[in-house]
């Protein structure tokens, strides 16, 4: 296993008419040995490009990439000792499951055993290697429950089985770093959650260094030791999942992490009151007088009687009952605000009701104005 370190890594593509398109900019990242690092962000944020640069499938335009302390910018993919699990699995269609798993081992053997044979002249080395590969394939297939599938072709497998074979192919080689590019996005919702748990357990068992890319923030949060939120080619926050949720570094992260997303309202703070569109609510006085955006999670919203003092008047636009809890969309002068309540508290709420709302001031987040405005409190 190994560490991965990116220093000011960037990717510049040649755009139309010789213009430069910067897909990734100044990414600094230090991933510890055995860490599960998840790159998350909306599509086009540069997360996959970053992963592909680590893999050696894309050239690195700027900066330095080190694996295990060794600079590998110009080392080809095959010599970086990494394994890559593709979104569409990329299993070789003309090879059986067993052959797919053994493929990487075989190609490496052909290089090494040719050398061994040249040096020692021993023909037994080849047979030894074959036996070792068979053993390794058996071991991997046992770990992943692939035993009954070994003789099948990829086209004869379900999506979940293909996914497991792709993981099997990766772990067979025992690489320094595992790279996953949205490996669960082709599975149905239920299987995705099951496989997520399996991946987490697999990570613990292998103690492997993993870099994992997804656009699904829930998947990202459940898997990550370290969460790297990306947007427009830049790292927005690099912290634990919990910290990204509790103390988002900027407005983008606040809006991206958490379901339903955080309510963010543009306004102005002054003397302990946050005012937007002429309606104010009390907040912590630490924020100086300035324009800013207030963020509060849906589960920190409280419903009140309409027109009660210290609340914002609103109309219930939609009610989504999820069993143990209920999401309520409120239309007000603050725009659309989502509230998440316990089901019993929301039992009487109907669409079209006039209500008021407030939020827990101690759990409010404040950001500078702008799409990626920095955290202020």
């Amino acid at each position, binding site marked *: 296993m190994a560490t991965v370190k990116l220093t000011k890594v960037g990717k510049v593509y040649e755009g139309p008419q010789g213009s430069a398109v910067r897909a990734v900019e100044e990414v600094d990242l230090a991933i510890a040995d055995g860490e599960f690092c998840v790159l998350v962000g909306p599509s086009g944020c540069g997360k996959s490009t970053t992963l592909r640069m680590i*893999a*050696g*499938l894309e050239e690195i335009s700027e900066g330095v990439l080190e694996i295990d302390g060794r600079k590998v910018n110009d080392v*080809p*993919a*095959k010599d970086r000792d*990494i*394994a*890559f699990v*593709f*979104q*569409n699995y*990329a299993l*070789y*269609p*003309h090879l059986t499951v067993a052959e797919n798993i053994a*493929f*990487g081992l075989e*190609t*490496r053997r052909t*290089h090494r055993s040719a050398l061994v044979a040249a040096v020692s002249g021993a023909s037994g080395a080849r047979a030894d290697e074959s036996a070792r590969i068979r053993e390794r394939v058996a071991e991997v297939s046992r770990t992943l429950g692939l035993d009954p599938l070994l003789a099948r072709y990829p086209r004869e497998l379900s999506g979940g089985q293909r996914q497991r074979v792709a993981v099997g192919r990766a772990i067979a080689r025992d690489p320094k770093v595992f790279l996953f590019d949205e490996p669960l996005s082709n599975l149905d919702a239920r299987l995705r959650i099951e496989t997520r748990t399996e991946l987490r357990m697999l990570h613990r068992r292998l103690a492997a260094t993993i870099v994992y890319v997804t656009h699904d923030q829930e998947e990202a949060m459940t898997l990550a030791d370290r969460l790297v939120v990306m947007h427009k080619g830049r790292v927005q926050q690099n912290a634990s999942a919990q910290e990204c949720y509790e103390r988002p570094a900027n407005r983008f992260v606040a809006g991206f992490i958490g379901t339903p997303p955080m309510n963010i309202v543009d306004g102005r703070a002054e003397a302990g009151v946050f005012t937007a569109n002429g309606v104010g609510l009390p907040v912590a006085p630490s924020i100086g007088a300035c324009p800013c955006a207030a963020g509060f999670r849906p589960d920190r919203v409280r419903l009140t009687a309409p027109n009660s003092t210290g609340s914002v008047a609103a109309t219930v636009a939609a009610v989504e009952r999820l069993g143990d809890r209920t999401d309520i969309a409120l239309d007000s002068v603050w725009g659309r605000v989502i509230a998440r309540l316990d089901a019993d508290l929301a039992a009487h709420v109907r669409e079209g009701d006039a209500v008021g709302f407030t939020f827990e001031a101690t759990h409010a987040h404040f950001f500078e104005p702008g799409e990626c405005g920095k955290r202020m409190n």
Partner: protein
Amino acid sequence: MKRSPLWNALLWFVLVMGTAAFVFPLWWMAVVSLETPERAEAAVTGSAGLSLVPPNPQFGNYAEAIRETGSTPWMGFVDALANSIVVTVLVVIGTVLSSSAVGYAFARLRFRGRTPVFLVMLGTMMLPGQVTMIPLFLLFREFGWIDSILPLVVPAFFGNAFFIFMYRQFIAQIPESLVEAARVDGLGHLAIWWRIILPLCRPVTAICAVFTFIGTWNDFLAPLIYLHSDESATLAVALNGFKNQYGGLEDVHLLMALSVLTMIPCIVLFIAAQKTFVEGLARGAVKG
């Protein structure tokens, strides 16, 4: 959908006539090959008609045709057959290997001038073979390759524009991630082509191999131009020996017998490769 009987009758009529038009030359060839010399010649000159089935089939025609091929009895045929097989097999191997490799390069490698080079390559398809015939002959004569199989075989190892195009289109549909997975697994481009791409191109390879086989096996002009001695002639050229120098056809029954024999490998190959072949022709018509 139910069709009216009249429509069905019309359909059958068209299909039967179409089939007859295609089968007629083959039937004619087969019947003439089994006729006596006199009846065969009469059929050719038009002085007498042909019966549907020869009344007195002369199977001995086939043995005689084999014996009479070339200048030495029996061995002339063996030589011509061997030459045809060697040339055809080498040309098929050369065309498949070179066309798929070049197709892979055009589909998957990024290099400066890829598109213009591809267009120029496609442009060569528009060039009639007759235009390059004389320059090529002069070139191969300079090389000292005349009366050897080299002028027939070596060009095949430099790709065929049409098949390169077919391979390129097919390979472009193979997911990029397969190639990337192979790169991560430690393969270079040559190994990716050989171990991943070529096995996946089976339907195209079947088409390429069958078309090339039939084209080369039946090719008359190129062997006629480059192979001058009897020993180096291919079957197609040897067939020509049954005509006299004025184009007369006194041994037309033998010519037809040898023609039937020459056709057999093509038919066998087509039937053997049919499944993969049809899959290849239909490929691209429907996605997935």
